[in-house]
């Protein structure tokens, strides 16, 4: 799925997609399994969290996710304008309803508070508009990048496209040179 589609999907979830784009996107969702899967992912994550959390935690989760995202929504709201946000959301829902697709999903989505506003979209535009997406690289290159990502940030939250498939049994490697060096100004070398 392209970044543009992903961003459009995010905007639709946010109610920030222009009406004419809503219509086109819904047509695409109805014909693209990949896109439909992504659409479902927003809903499924909430369900997955519920399934795997203890009762008390699960009850608190949805409102807190919503709370956190509402905070951000307010900021966007401020910039985008109340009318545009709600009119596009209503238009989006209407179009989806007409297409007979995901209407019930939206209802359950809103009711359950599983409102995920993927805030990465705006930033991703900045980052990925110019550069080739990692996932469009040849498979061996992707595998190499995945290995490097694991080494770069083994404890980070960034999901690895190749997961653990890139791996295998490894031996711990000690550092050869652990002394910190280098300066803090421009043209620094080490």
């Amino acid at each position: 799925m392209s970044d543009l589609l992903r961003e459009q999907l995010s905007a639709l979830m946010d109610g920030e997609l222009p009406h004419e784009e809503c219509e086109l996107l819904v047509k695409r969702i109805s014909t693209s399994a990949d896109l439909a899967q992504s659409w479902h992912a927003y809903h499924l994550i909430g369900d997955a969290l519920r399934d795997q959390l203890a009762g008390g935690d699960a009850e608190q989760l949805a409102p807190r996710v919503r709370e956190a995202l509402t905070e951000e929504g307010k900021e966007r709201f401020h910039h985008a304008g109340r009318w545009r946000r709600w009119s596009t959301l209503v238009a989006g829902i209407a179009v989806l309803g007409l297409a007979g697709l995901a209407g019930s999903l939206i209802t359950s989505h809103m009711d359950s508070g599983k409102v995920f506003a993927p805030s990465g979209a705006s930033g991703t535009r900045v980052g990925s508009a110019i550069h080739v997406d990692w996932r469009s690289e040849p498979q061996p290159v992707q595998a190499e990048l995945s290995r490097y990502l694991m080494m770069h940030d083994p404890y980070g939250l960034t999901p690895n496209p190749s997961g653990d498939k890139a791996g295998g049994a490894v031996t711990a490697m000690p550092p050869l040179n652990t002394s910190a060096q280098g300066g803090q100004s421009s043209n620094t070398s080490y």
Partner: protein
Amino acid sequence: MRSGFLLLLAALCLPLTAFAGPNPEAWFTLMQQALKSRSYQGNIVYMRHGEPAAYRLVACSDGYARLSSLTGPPREVVRGPHVAVRIRAGTAFMVVREPRHGGAPLPFPPATQAPVNQLARWYRFELGGWSRVAGENARLVELVPRDHWRYGYRVWISRSSDLPLRSQLVGPQGGVMEQAFFTHVKLLDESTARGLIGSKAMSLVKQAASSPKAEAANACPGAAASGAVSIHGLPPGYHLLRQQCQAAPGARIAVTHVILSDGLSSVSVFVAPHHTGGATLTGQTSMGSVHAMGRIANGYAVTVMGTVPMSTISRISRGVRIKTP
């Protein structure tokens, strides 16, 4: 006398951020102290590139932590003070030394323990408003980059626990590139946290940390060996943290792994022998906010990667020099 005692008791019960006042650097320092001294568990939602993911984290004040994915492919990482072990099917699948460069066992930024005065050279600290995150009141502290060589960060610090409850990576035009936030945090005593991390998982970390250090000596042959790789013209603020010979998971040949940092963001440089027809990145690529650039130099594949602007990646890549044997 009694009221004085009660006042003192009340003051001792207050979180340190209650005394931080309007100074964002003080808030940040107290957050760093809390990350070192608190044991806690929580659920984290991470969002990037329109894709949400959920994790559960248990962190102990002794430096151990366990991070488990709740969505997507199963993934589990156990971290000790100086080692991170990725676990698969109950066994160590990958070992990385000095994870996060001695930072706190928090899987999202700003988990750095770098002194605030060092960070302040490259980031301007600003105090924002109050929000509610994970059911707690939290104060926003912004780290605004002073130049274009790094991204900005926003962190919401709990008033009650001093822990960072929410974090955002901010792009050059102010857009949020990725964010992580707790949906729930519970403070624990150390023994409870250790129990939740699990003795078997902690043993794996200890075992990895105490493994012999001899085997890497001949693992990075030729020009990829230590001392043969140097980087010139680093962007301002970035300095060498560590250079090591490390086996990539599933790869037959070890690579030289150079880690650079400005105290908050880090960049990795990987140098490996290039084989014609092999899997090597040439050019630029991105996965969300993680950028990478690859090129061939003197028969070696040089790959630079990090959550920093592509211009930073590109400048570092251009500065890599390899001395052939």
